[in-house]
């Protein structure tokens, strides 16, 4: 018997979508003098809103406002007072969770199930967690009276627009810094609603400034002489440019860049849960996750069985309208990203990997890519080396734990890894040897504000979250 689930769309009216959004500088929403941008719903290709962007002069205004706020109020405010503001932001995010979730799904294309159950609650959790640190910094292990750095210039990506804003702003504020943040060009809306929350929480003007724009605005911001600390999450390519341009300036830098994580499945793994973990590792957020488990390393003796189970499971994933509560895979964030995924998938086929794509129907409009699994991938293929940042899994095999380790580490990246085995000693051995900032055991893509996140090598440096994450925003 077939049992179709009726459409269960979340109402888009909940998003309180406005025709225009303005940048937030010095406590006020103002028109930027840059060329306005149009934010598009990737699921329908319709324009959602027009957003004013910052010019070089606006960046300068924002950085100066942040400096004034740092000097006059925020930098000298007792931690216990700062904590009250940060708690207030956390509570207000929780109160407006539904609105933020719907807006995030509209602007980004991710399924409402994820924005509702992961992005928004985790964003609130980051503010809650860091509010707790604000008056306890002397116990963080960075000396008796660790000082803030000043103005933090932060540039964030489009894959988790609100959550990345929270990851950046919360620790900066807790440590006593002020912030100028540039959201991604394709997903500026939730950051600007967060600005509204920050205004309503009555943070002193200038403590947080949010300036939308494209890469040029980001470059202007990180290179502004008034910025004391730069935090960037995005591509390795841009990260390298930022690192080069900041050399010798004395600005403190943390980078969270790309990844090509290995998800290693041994023959004694809990197979059904490993399949879930593989699915969650690569198809969560359409694979637009820097720590995605994009390389599946499976022990050769179970490869066939595991792949059969995986394909059966992936066939049940529901692709479609991001606002439908039963959608598992939403839209690819932009046409550019879709083109990049398509190009790398073609390279995979051309290099001889065996492609399997879920037979799920694709909507007529919007940017979509069906979940795809490549079997018979070898280390030398592009799809094993390059970050695809889409719902595409490359499957490789190994024979021994040593081979698994060698293959997992054989990448210029090093953000995350997963290990699936019922053998505890093997988990510990691998966790010790894997060059990855996060190693998940018998799970994948689990995030918590208490757990530091960050990478090795071309995946960047610095940690976000936990006690370790405070270091990036303190003068230590």
């Amino acid at each position, binding site marked *: 018997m077939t049992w179709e*689930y009726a459409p269960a769309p979340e109402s888009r009216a909940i998003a309180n979508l406005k025709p225009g959004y303005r940048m937030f500088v010095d406590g006020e929403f103002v028109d930027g003098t840059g060329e306005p941008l149009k934010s598009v719903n990737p699921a329908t290709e319709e324009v959602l809103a027009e957003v004013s962007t910052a010019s070089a002069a606006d960046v300068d205004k924002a950085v100066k406002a942040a400096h004034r706020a740092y000097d006059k109020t925020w930098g000298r405010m007792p931690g216990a007072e700062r904590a009250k503001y940060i708690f207030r932001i956390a509570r207000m995010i929780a109160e407006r969770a539904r609105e933020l979730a719907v807006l995030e799904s509209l602007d980004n294309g991710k399924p409402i199930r994820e924005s509702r159950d992961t992005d928004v609650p985790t964003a609130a959790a980051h503010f809650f967690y860091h509010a707790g640190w604000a008056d306890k910094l002397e116990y963080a292990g960075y000396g008796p009276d660790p000082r803030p750095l000043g103005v933090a210039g932060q540039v964030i990506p489009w894959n988790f627009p609100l959550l990345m804003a929270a990851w950046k702003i919360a620790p900066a504020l807790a440590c006593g810094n002020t912030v100028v943040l540039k959201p991604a060009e394709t997903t500026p809306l939730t950051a600007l609603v967060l600005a509204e929350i920050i205004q309503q929480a009555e943070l002193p003007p200038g403590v947080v400034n949010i300036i939308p724009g494209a890469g040029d605005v980001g470059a202007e911001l990180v290179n502004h002489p008034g910025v004391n600390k730069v935090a960037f999450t995005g591509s390795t390519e841009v990260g390298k440019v930022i690192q080069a341009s900041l050399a010798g300036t004395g600005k403190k830098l943390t980078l969270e860049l790309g990844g090509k994580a290995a998800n290693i499945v041994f023959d004694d793994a809990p197979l*059904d849960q490993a399949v879930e973990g593989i699915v969650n590792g690569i198809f969560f957020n359409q694979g637009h996750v820097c720590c995605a488990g994009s390389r599946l390393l499976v022990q050769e003796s179970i490869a066939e*069985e595991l792949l059969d189970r995986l394909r059966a499971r992936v066939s049940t994933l529901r692709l479609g309208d991001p606002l439908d509560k039963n959608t598992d895979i939403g839209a690819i964030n932009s046409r550019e990203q879709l083109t990049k995924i398509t190009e790398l998938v073609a390279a995979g086929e051309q290099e001889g990997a065996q492609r399997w794509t879920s037979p799920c129907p694709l909507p007529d409009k919007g940017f979509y890519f069906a979940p795809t699994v490549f079997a018979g991938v070898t280390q030398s293929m592009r799809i094993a080396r390059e970050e695809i940042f889409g719902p595409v899994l490359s499957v490789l095999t190994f024979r021994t734990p040593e081979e698994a380790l060698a293959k997992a580490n054989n990448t210029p990246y090093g953000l995350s890894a997963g290990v699936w085995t019922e053998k505890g000693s093997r988990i510990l051995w691998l966790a010790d040897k894997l060059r990855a900032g996060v190693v998940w055991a018998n799970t994948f893509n689990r995030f918590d504000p208490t757990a530091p996140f960050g990478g090795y090598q071309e995946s960047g440096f610095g940690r976000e979250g936990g006690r370790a994450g405070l270091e990036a925003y303190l003068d230590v």
Partner: protein
Amino acid sequence: MAGTTELTDVTRDEGALRRFLHGLPGVDAVGIEQRSAGLATRSIKKASKLRAIELAISMVDLTTLEGADTHGKIRSLCAKAKRPEAGVSHVAAVCVYPDLVATAKEALDGAPVRIASVATAFPSGRSSRQVKLADTEFAVAQGATEVDMVIDRGAFLSGRYGQVFEEIQAVKAAAGSAHLKVILETGELATYDNVRRASWLALLAGGDFIKTSTGKVSPAATLPVTNVMLQAVRDWHGVTGELRGVKPAGGIRTTKDAIRHLVAVNEVAGPEWLTPDLFRFGASSLLNDLLMQRRTQLDGHYSGPDYVTVD
């Protein structure tokens, strides 16, 4: 996973059976619970909800297993089973103690409702093999078309898998043409690994259905446990091509719970299991909630518990 021919081999002796059951992939508790919680967020609305409610009604094994059961209680249970309310087709079965099977048979009077009876010293299963088999034969002789047996959890937990296996086979033989549901009493098996092993043991021994619980032990049916059992029948089908059923019993009281189970059936085992031949709910109070929610769907408003019959 082993092929069909290898499966006859694994029951050759105690050692082979043990090696097979312990060679099954483990179940990660955090993972199965996360997956179950994820499936529970499916939003089933409108036509799909009504469809699910009607399907769930057709899958109910309407149950009364009380020391206080009387002929009168059974007669009213059977009336409800035949015609839950105006315009609603019958449930799958009634489920009663063996000594009340004859009453149920008489009350059902040829209606297409099956008669399930618990047997084998239900619920503890603590008696001699002889008594358990006599219990089974009695239930069938009285007219039971389905037998819900309990496994010997003591034997299972002490690793005497061969004994559990033989006992299921013996009960299956004693039950004759009656459908055999094997109650694992998952609340006493405690771990998901045990649930998976016991599921395979029951399938290997010829159980037509694997059933979670007696309803007398808490926790009874939970979503993660049902999921592990659905994986077992799915994998059994993969190996042998045979379709076997699953029956969660105990603790499923609301339409919301029932729909969550149906979502799991649909997405974990597959749509072919969405039939009373392969999935049942062992329940008593669930039926009335399904009837109330069905009416809410049809009438567009909620009427309340006084508008369904208490039997």
